[in-house]
């Protein structure tokens, strides 16, 4: 292992790929955006998304830096459990299927998850929820922007800031032109690219580097990666599940989809999206297990996936990896930009600042918002502050505290706003304490457990019954 480790692509080729893909997506977004006539068209794609597009966007949005970069990272760090545990994040989509059906039934004219919290739990809970949503949205946005930079750096040695800037400009560009319609349509194409690409890479890897040689190398030199009794990995398992559940249950990315899907499509779409997603982290994670056998020891654990694929597949492989990961990042980044700007437009601008705003003004503000959020994300991405996994799991302490308040809020009319607010705030705080005192792999679990306990007390002590008709707010 003494040869120089060079990059799979030269930086000019890497840049050319970025420019070509960027222009294609932006032109496509502009083309689709021509059909947007009202703010509802722009924000919720006219509430008319059919089953095929719905399932594809559910799956593609969930395939992100999480699956293409962080799943290999966690496999590299936690071994078998990292890989299997990561695939359990599919449970988030699968368990959101019944919730999505319920959301659509309770709020057929709703816009955002913030709407639900405000109407169901009142102002105090809404503020706590908005803080959690904003922290999470920026945590995820920053991790996606960072992932773009890391991807290009790992494959071509191109400066981190260039890749990061490029992916943000591209995603802001086509979301700005096309709104949710463009986001969902590009997600469909990106989903196809991701599935074909990931399966192709894994197939070639197994064919080139045998399973037996990978197993031998790991057994001899990295035994903990094969150990099913690996303590930190065991601690990580349910933490990852609750993190995934919290991400999906609270985020307007998924609520806006549930509300945009046609009729009763939501339940089937999320179920199928989850089942399609389930094997992807296994495949991407497996790639990382081959790293020691190939003599690849990355600068940062989140770079291991692209580096292994590029090493095994050479230049062509590096291009494939680039296209797959770039598609995965774009499919999530655009969704998050659109959903976060909807949340700000609807919950802050329309409901707090300008209740009389016309449809045209909302449409315009939404677009300014997308550009502003893109710029803010870029500023946060400039200093590469943490690994992707650590950054994402920091947000885990926030989002996991919303799981029980949301589930009980949707189904149980006894939980009051005060208890929901206390559950989310105390869960987040103690989740953060565990994040800093134990590690990132327990933050979500702690937050969820505390929040569940507070909600249980709230339901038992409550004397009030919520009137579900209060959720029917005119827009």
């Amino acid at each position, binding site marked *: *292992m*003494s*040869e*120089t*480790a*060079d*990059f799979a692509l030269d*930086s*000019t080729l890497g*840049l050319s790929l970025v*420019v070509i893909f960027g*222009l294609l997506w*932006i032109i496509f977004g502009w083309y689709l955006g021509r059909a947007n006539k009202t703010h509802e068209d722009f924000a919720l794609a006219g509430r008319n998304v059919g089953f095929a597009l719905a399932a594809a966007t559910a799956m593609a949005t969930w395939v992100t830096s999480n699956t293409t970069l962080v799943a290999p990272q966690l496999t*590299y760090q936690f*071994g078998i459990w990292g890989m299997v545990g990561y695939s359990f994040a599919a449970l988030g989509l699968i*368990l959101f299927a*019944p919730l999505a*059906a319920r959301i659509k*039934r309770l709020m057929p004219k709703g816009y955002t998850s913030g709407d639900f919290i405000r109407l169901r739990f009142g102002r105090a809970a809404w503020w706590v929820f908005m803080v959690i949503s904003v922290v999470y949205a920026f945590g995820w946005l920053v991790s996606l922007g960072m992932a773009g930079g890391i991807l290009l750096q790992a494959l071509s*040695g*191109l*400066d981190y800031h*260039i890749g990061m*800037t*490029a992916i943000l*400009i*591209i995603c802001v560009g086509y979301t700005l*032109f096309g709104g949710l319609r463009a986001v969902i349509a590009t997600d469909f194409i990106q989903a196809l690219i991701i599935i074909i690409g990931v399966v192709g890479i894994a197939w070639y890897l197994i064919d080139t580097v045998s399973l037996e040689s990978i197993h031998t190398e*790991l057994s001899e*030199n*990295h*035994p*903990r990666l094969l150990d099913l009794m*690996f*303590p*930190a990995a*065991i*601690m990580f398992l*349910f933490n990852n*599940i609750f993190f995934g*559940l919290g991400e999906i249950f609270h985020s307007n990315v998924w609520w806006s989809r549930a509300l945009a899907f046609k009729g009763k499509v939501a339940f089937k779409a999320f179920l199928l999206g989850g089942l399609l997603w389930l094997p992807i982290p296994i495949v991407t994670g497996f790639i990382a297990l081959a790293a*020691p056998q190939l*003599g690849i*020891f*990355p*600068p*940062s*654990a989140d770079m*291991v996936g692209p*580096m292994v694929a590029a090493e095994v597949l050479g230049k062509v492989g590096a291009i494939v990896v680039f296209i797959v990961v770039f598609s995965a990042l774009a499919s999530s980044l655009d969704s998050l930009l659109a959903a976060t700007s909807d949340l700000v437009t609807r919950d802050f601008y329309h409901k707090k600042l300008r209740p009389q705003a016309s449809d045209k003004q909302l449409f315009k503000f939404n677009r300014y918002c997308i550009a502003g959020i893109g710029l803010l994300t870029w500023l946060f991405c400039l200093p590469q502050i943490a690994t992707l996994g650590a950054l994402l799991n920091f947000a885990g302490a926030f989002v996991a505290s919303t*799981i*029980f308040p949301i*589930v009980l809020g*949707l*189904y*149980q009319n006894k939980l009051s706003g005060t208890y929901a607010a206390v559950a989310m705030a105390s869960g987040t705080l103690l989740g953060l304490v565990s994040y800093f005192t134990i*590690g990132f792999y327990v933050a979500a*679990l702690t937050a969820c*457990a505390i929040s*569940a306990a507070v909600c249980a007390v709230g339901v038992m002590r409550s004397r009030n019954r919520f009137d579900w008709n209060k959720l029917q707010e005119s827009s």
Partner: protein
Amino acid sequence: MPDRARFVINIALLLLITLLARPASAYVLSWQTESSNQSNSELPELSAPANSREGYFVLSLSKSPTQDLIVEYSTDEEFREINRTYAWFGDFQDMTLTGFSDGTHYFRLKVSSSEPAENTHQETQLSNVVQVQVDHYALEQALTLFSLGGVLFAILVVIILYQHQRSRAHE
């Protein structure tokens, strides 16, 4: 948005990306061009965290490498036996290692021996030695958290499925 504005945005995007690019040659680590004036340069200082509870950790260099480097790993402080070597990747300053069991692990740098015979004297150049103490969490602690997570998850699934069925029946 008017056509002209779209055109301007596209051109600006192209220009921005192109102007920010570093030339590919800036990243090529080639001993042929560099070894002549850098063969005598000192090795960067190696650093590492003192402890790890997960068996993975990051080794760091005090500056970007200017020559091909190898990390030597041993469980012996005196390096009487080298257990494994790791090639340093590119001009990055960090390397993440993983999968280590409980114990004290020692690391040091040396210059790669892939260069021609006349340069092999560089192999003797060694860096400082760093040690990492790996001490995994107790299994009992991990299993307690695992059980807590399992119970909480089961409760959540039962609530969702039960309420979903109930809500459908109510319809």
